[in-house]
């Protein structure tokens, strides 16, 4: 397919989550060259670490697989993992971008045979599972990783273990001498699809995330429920690995709070409803209570709320809990507060408490070149500014809206990059 619209400069997409992937394939499939960079070893971003999507309760990897196939088939998309933007010069139509690449210690020739992992002896925190378990120092990021290549943790460089790993690779794909490197790209447009991070639960001191093991976050709940998660998909409370009989889901843990995130993170209500469904699917006798200010389920997602409301073992408590306290004995935690409707003061014991922490733009972490004029007060890249943003980089969005935003971003990038 060659015709006039393909006469454009390359488009750089920063971030390889669902938004970045979407922006990249949509632009490429309209005949434009795209460079997609991702700072972790694999594409997929946050959605690859989710168990299911609301409201269909289908698996994110299903759509990712199709998108990966689209990337594989396209000769127009170049993917660089372990890479992030170090500097940007120029403006719309002509940017010079410095890309910084961290060592993976594994060359592109890796066949994913697994010999390196067999030789590895030490373990490191499993990034895919938010550090809830460990993986070998040489590991595949996860089974759906794209690109399907191993990565070696820097801790083994210069150790006998590192040497053993290097020796185990029959095809010489392990290179422990890799160093951080950088390269420059000349591009016509940049799409910022830098996504989000979970708001740090440690900041919510009244909820005792740091010292109560059975208080976890919503993203951790996704991993607990995932068949490839730390527990093989079994929802257990961390303190004793017992199946929880009572679960509290706390909404607006950080969101809609001037001391933390002033905005509503949009997805947490539905994510918690989904978590209630996970629990109820696994444990017939479990009771789930959702503590909320407002249940926010826009458009057809409303049917998902109604579905959960029909379940007599899912309770809805209009209240923002004041604090969480340790349980007297046997794990769990006590959720304390006042019911806004009944004015009842409660202190209820739960086996597991899940904090629905909100979404904070990744640029907050400060590893992005600043685009001050296009950032709003929260760090989102305002969608109608000069910088092109896609997905949660532009505001708190769900997956469907992120895809919508990313498809639009592809169009904007083409317009800017066209000559």
């Amino acid at each position, binding site marked *: 397919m060659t015709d006039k619209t393909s006469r454009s400069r390359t488009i750089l997409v920063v971030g390889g989550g669902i938004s970045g992937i979407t922006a990249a394939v949509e632009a490429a499939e309209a005949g434009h060259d795209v460079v997609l960079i991702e700072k972790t070893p694999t594409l997929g971003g946050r959605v690859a670490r989710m168990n299911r999507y609301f409201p269909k309760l289908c698996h994110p990897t299903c759509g990712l697989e199709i998108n990966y196939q689209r990337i594989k*088939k396209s000769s127009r998309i170049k993917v660089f993992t372990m890479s992030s933007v170090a500097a940007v010069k120029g403006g719309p139509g002509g940017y010079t971008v410095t890309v910084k690449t961290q060592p993976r210690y594994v060359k592109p020739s890796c066949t994913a045979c697994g010999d390196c992992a067999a030789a590895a002896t030490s373990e490191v925190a499993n990034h895919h599972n938010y550090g809830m378990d460990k993986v070998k120092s040489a590991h595949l990021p996860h089974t759906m990783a794209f690109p399907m290549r191993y990565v070696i943790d820097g801790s083994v460089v210069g150790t006998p273990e590192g040497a053993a790993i290097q020796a185990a690779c029959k095809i010489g794909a392990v290179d422990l001498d890799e160093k951080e490197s950088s390269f420059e790209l000349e591009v016509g447009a940049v799409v910022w699809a830098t996504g989000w991070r979970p708001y740090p639960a440690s900041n919510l001191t009244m909820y005792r995330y740091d010292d109560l093991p059975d208080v976890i976050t919503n993203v951790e709940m996704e991993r607990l429920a995932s068949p490839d998660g730390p527990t093989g998909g079994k929802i257990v409370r961390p303190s004793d690995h017992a199946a929880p009989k009572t679960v509290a889901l706390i909404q607006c843990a950080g969101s809609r709070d001037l001391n933390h995130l*002033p905005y509503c993170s949009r997805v947490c209500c539905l994510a918690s409803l989904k978590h209630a469904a996970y629990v109820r699917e696994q444990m017939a006798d479990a009771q789930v209570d959702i503590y909320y200010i407002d249940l926010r389920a*826009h*458009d057809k997602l409303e049917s998902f709320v109604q579905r959960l409301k029909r379940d007599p073992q899912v309770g809805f408590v209009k209240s923002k809990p004041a604090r969480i306290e340790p349980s007297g004995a046997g794990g769990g935690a006590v959720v304390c507060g006042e019911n806004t409707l009944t004015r009842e003061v409660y202190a209820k014991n739960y086996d597991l408490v899940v904090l629905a922490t909100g979404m904070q733009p990744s640029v907050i972490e400060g590893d992005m070149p600043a685009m001050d004029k296009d950032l709003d007060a929260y760090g*989102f890249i305002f969608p109608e500014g000069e910088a092109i943003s896609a997905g949660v980089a532009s505001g708190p969005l769900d997956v469907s809206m992120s895809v*919508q935003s990313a498809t639009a971003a592809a169009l904007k990038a083409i317009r800017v990059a066209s000559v």
Partner: protein
Amino acid sequence: MSERKTGVYLCSGCGIGEAVNMAALEAVAKSEFKLEPKCHALLCGDEGVGLIRADVEGGVNQVVVGACSSRVMADRFAFNTAMTIRADLREKVIWSHPAGDEDTQMLAEDHIRMALSHAPKVKQAEPWVEGNYSQRICVLGAGVTGLSAAKEAAALGHDVLLVERSSELGGHARLGSKRLPHKPPYDAPAENDLADLIKAVEGNSKITVKTNTTVTKTAGMPGKFAVTLSCGAVEDVGAIIIATGYRPYDPSKLGHLGYGASPDVVTNTQFEEMLKAGKPSRKSNGAAVKSVAFIQCAGSRDPNHLNYCSSVCCATSLKQALEVIHADPTANCYVVYSEMRTPGVAEELYRTAQKAGVIFIKGAVKAVDGDLTVHVADELIGENVPLKGLDMVVLATGMVPNSTNPDAAAQEYGQEQLNADIDPEAPIKVAGYCGEAPATVEKRVQAQPPGGSLLNLQYRQGPHLPVLHDGFADSHYICFPYETRRTGIYTCGPVRRPMDWAEAVEDSQGAVMKAIQAVRSASAGAALHPRVGDLSFPKVNLNQCTKCRRCTVECPFGAIDEDEKEYPQFNATRCRRCGTCMGACPVRTISFDNYSVEMLTTQIKAVKIPDEFSGKPRILIIACENDAIPALDMAAIKRHGWSAHVRILSVRCLGSVSLLCISDALSVGYDGVMLMGCKPGDDYQCHFVKGSAMAAERLSKIGETLKSMMLEPERVAQVEVSIADGERIAGVINTFVDQITAIGFNPFKGF
């Protein structure tokens, strides 16, 4: 294609060479297929790929690679002038079965046989390209969404035909007061800047605007649509964007909320017009409005009205309240709500409204009296509270998608437009198979909102764009929200789902992106999502066609029409290449250059079936390449092995599986057949919408065939598998193998 020259390349790397006998694999190629394989210990490495590349440059035009799963290294084994066929020896052989085992070896050899046997039948796909293609984009509806779509498409060099049924541009926004905030700090109503948008469209020479116009007929296919307008003109366009927006929910149905009880009970759209006109005054007596109640969810989130949340009413009420207070700071505004939904940064507007003194009452409205007393069951104080002394009650009515044209009468379906495919939840009635006359397809009532079809598609499957429940266009609305079930026709704005102005603008950009891809791909003869770039298309041998019409009825995308002699007429650029037509055809006369029933049955028959004295059953698994095959690969990566007695056939979609594949398998001695595909039904996960549902429907008819073959019906099964079933799938297979083993060997074995 020039003379076929096939090269066979086997990889012994990743432990394949240690786990299976490579010489025996080579021998299969040599003795059974008269092909000389080349073996390499790292075929995907530069040297291995170089070996293949040299042969390709020397004239090899078909490359058969026996190495890893086709899901990996696709870029390494892609060659410009040769097609590649993959035989998986790694994931589905040595990673999932014990090394050095006799059964593993038999499996590996069968994988080579399956690949090599059908290779001679696979042709390099030649695209369907015929006549002229239009790059022009038709946009239906000239509200904010449609105007933005027109502007965006024109900015990228496309001519645009913008069709608007009313006399003016602008839609609801034309009558609206301020906009919802869309720029930082998002805390106050924003100016209505519709005029700028209209100016940009009217001043653009690439955009042809047709007001007072509707579409009376749409024929053709992407790249070649012929759109007939109410003025009689017939316009050629390449893709169509539906931006017909919404209509407010009919307030006459909201008597329980006081509509009709007093002229001072109005809808939010009516109130918007009053705000635009200036300081609102009571309709009843012209007095100034000092006290207003805004009642949320008027029609929305109500099983008796609209099931869904209309998304924007909460924020719109806050905006209207702020406008009232801005005009008269002494005015009282009440918002009666059940959940205040101001997601994302719209929270700031909520905060502004709270600061401005808007009073929020959480509860349900029980009644609104003629004197405007609103009776609220207040949830916070737990009792019924009458809200008195109001000057006006504003009902925050929801949005109904204009999936149909409310001005036009609904068309009756002709016999030739049996509406078989509108309701995705209901499986299509399929006649019995194996050549008998098809049963009549019943005409079903469909859940379209009132009004005529927007495009009046001249498609065999009816004039409408298929909708999901609630009347919004059917799509994979999470991952691929723009993909409708009518290729080249995209929806955006509130017709797709309830959304506000800023979001509709963004949505229009997304839809334009898809429309541009559609016109480009159509002219190249290439498929769109999900088989992007596939150049094959369905070919039919009409000499064999029995005019049973199953293909035309079953196509999930309405790609096939019927000609005047009732033969199927394939519209290549509407086709998404799933092969459902191929699976539907009882006389296997529909095929693709690179995919056919014959290619599938050849692979099925290529497997060596051991006799019943061997104690080795053979079970065929027909697996969807989009989800079941990746799930098998995931299982293999985790080394979750499954029975070596199964043979896995990868298909584009279960919809493409003909019952003939299954009866062929049983007649050559397979002991059982299992279909693995995606979730069907309401929350379908099939990338081709109905493939797994169609397969199940067809399979329900196989009992008779099995009975006539004196076989147990339990030998054939379909299971639902998702891509995340890597941990479960091996167990599913093994359980089925145990069941088949318990039934015993197929008596056809050896015949």
